[in-house]
């Protein structure tokens, strides 16, 4: 099988794309990855593999991507600039391409202070935008930072993140423009709960013509409980959970929380599908991968196209 990015094919084919997230285990067990990925197989086009998310030590994203690839699925390698300098980042891009990984998402990464190694040094040699540009220059110009030539360019579909809910609102779109100019082919957004603000942000994105220059996938995370909704609102950086949603979760009995969470998620996807410039959805069901298939089914996203 030739190594191709399924995500790229789906998006270029004009289909509404579906990606999901798979967090590697806090251990060396490949079965944990195989089990999680199995829940996503056939339900999504490609699978994001997080890179020591929330700054907690986990199996490396690259290794988990390799396992997922061996299952015949299309992994998206998330890479953060928190832990590696430009030598290591570029080296890993070459390595990822060599083992057939075809998607990368370039991120800053959650700060060390949130994780289980708060005494670690934060590298931040490149920022996420400089990293995007480095990957693009490697792919399109076969050169590394500083201009030295590569013997073979890596083949990568390049992604970035955007948070429509952080401040300052007006500058969020300027920064998205910088990410696109730096090399982002696709964007996955922070979890969307406040659709009004997201629509406002998309309007600004369209005003700058950015929806024509990259594929935007709206991020969603199904809520499991009213407690989770409150926790995300108050404790998770860059998250905007409107009070109405918390009330809605509180309004149903405990045994129906998950159903209500899935229902909200499906409604969100329906609304996202109708927004001009949104080309797909990124479902981040945190430690709840089994919900992804049901959400995709109920949102009318199945079956996934064969590419």
């Amino acid at each position: 099988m030739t190594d191709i990015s399924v995500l790229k094919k789906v998006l270029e084919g004009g289909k509404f794309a579906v990606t999901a997230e798979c967090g590697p285990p806090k251990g060396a067990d490949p079965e944990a990855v195989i089990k999680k990925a199995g829940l996503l197989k056939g339900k999504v086009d490609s699978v994001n593999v997080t890179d020591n998310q929330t700054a907690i030590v986990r199996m490396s994203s690259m290794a988990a991507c390799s396992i997922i690839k061996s299952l015949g699925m299309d992994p998206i390698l998330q890479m953060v600039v928190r832990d590696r300098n430009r030598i290591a980042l570029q080296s890993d891009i070459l390595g990822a391409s060599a083992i057939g990984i075809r998607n990368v998402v370039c991120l800053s990464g959650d700060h060390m202070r949130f994780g289980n190694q708060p005494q670690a040094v934060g590298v931040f040699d490149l920022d996420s935008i400089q990293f995007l540009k480095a990957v693009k220059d490697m792919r399109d110009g076969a050169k590394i930072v500083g201009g030295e030539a590569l013997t073979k360019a890596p083949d990568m579909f390049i992604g970035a993140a955007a948070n429509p809910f952080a401040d300052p609102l007006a500058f969020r779109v300027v920064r998205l423009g910088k990410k696109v100019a730096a090399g982002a082919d696709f964007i996955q957004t922070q979890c969307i709960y406040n659709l009004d603000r997201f629509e406002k942000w998309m309007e600004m994105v369209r005003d700058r013509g950015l929806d024509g220059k990259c594929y935007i996938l709206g991020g969603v995370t199904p809520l499991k409980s009213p407690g989770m909704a409150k926790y995300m609102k108050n404790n998770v950086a860059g998250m905007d959970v409107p009070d109405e949603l918390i009330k809605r979760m509180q309004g149903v009995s405990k045994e129906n929380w998950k159903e209500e969470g899935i229902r909200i998620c499906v409604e969100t996807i329906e609304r996202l599908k109708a927004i001009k410039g949104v080309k797909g959805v990124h479902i981040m069901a945190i430690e709840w991968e089994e919900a992804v298939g049901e959400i995709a089914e109920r949102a009318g996203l199945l079956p996934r196209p064969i590419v």
Partner: protein
Amino acid sequence: MITAEQKPMDEIREMIAPYKRILTVGCASCVAECAAGGEKETGALASALRMACRMSGDEKVIHEKTLDRQCVKDFVVQLDDVIKDYDAILSLGCGAGVQAVAEMYKEVPVIPALNTEFLGETRDQGLWVENCLGCGDCMLYFFGGVCPLARCSKQLLNGPCGGSRDGKCEVDPDVPCAWQAIIDKLSAFNALDRLEMIYPPKDWSKKHGSGPRKIIREDQKR
């Protein structure tokens, strides 16, 4: 200026334990400004140590002296005449001061009494804030006089990240978002366009790429 804070008393006492005659040396420059190692703090530390030693029956002679600048050889030489009377120096200089004294008197152990912290400013009475990394290639022009390398938790040159909320940093709600400050400042004099460009990777070789740095100025040599 260089900021510092005094080490815990127990740690200082442990380090000075083997010595009987100790000269406590303060510095009247930066560490005096941040109330960590000036004449006043040096006197206070020496008294506190004398008291603590006496209480625990530990016979020590502890004297004090404050230099104008502990990191400048021309001032450190003032210790030449007295150094022979002591078997250790307890320095309330910054890391540079401790090392300048240690370099000068090779046979004498020099013990740090402070933890050197950062390059910063005195923002208010009792408040010092970090605002310079000493990167060797100042970019403050582009960022309206606010350094993202020193003041953004993720050192973004192309910020702000997605964790900026109500002008605060996601890492700590007490930390102002440097990027919000940059945007506010540049907006104030219509220079927000400076943020449209992509700032390339920083040349860190100017900070620590080739080992410890030095400045050589022929016109200043004697």
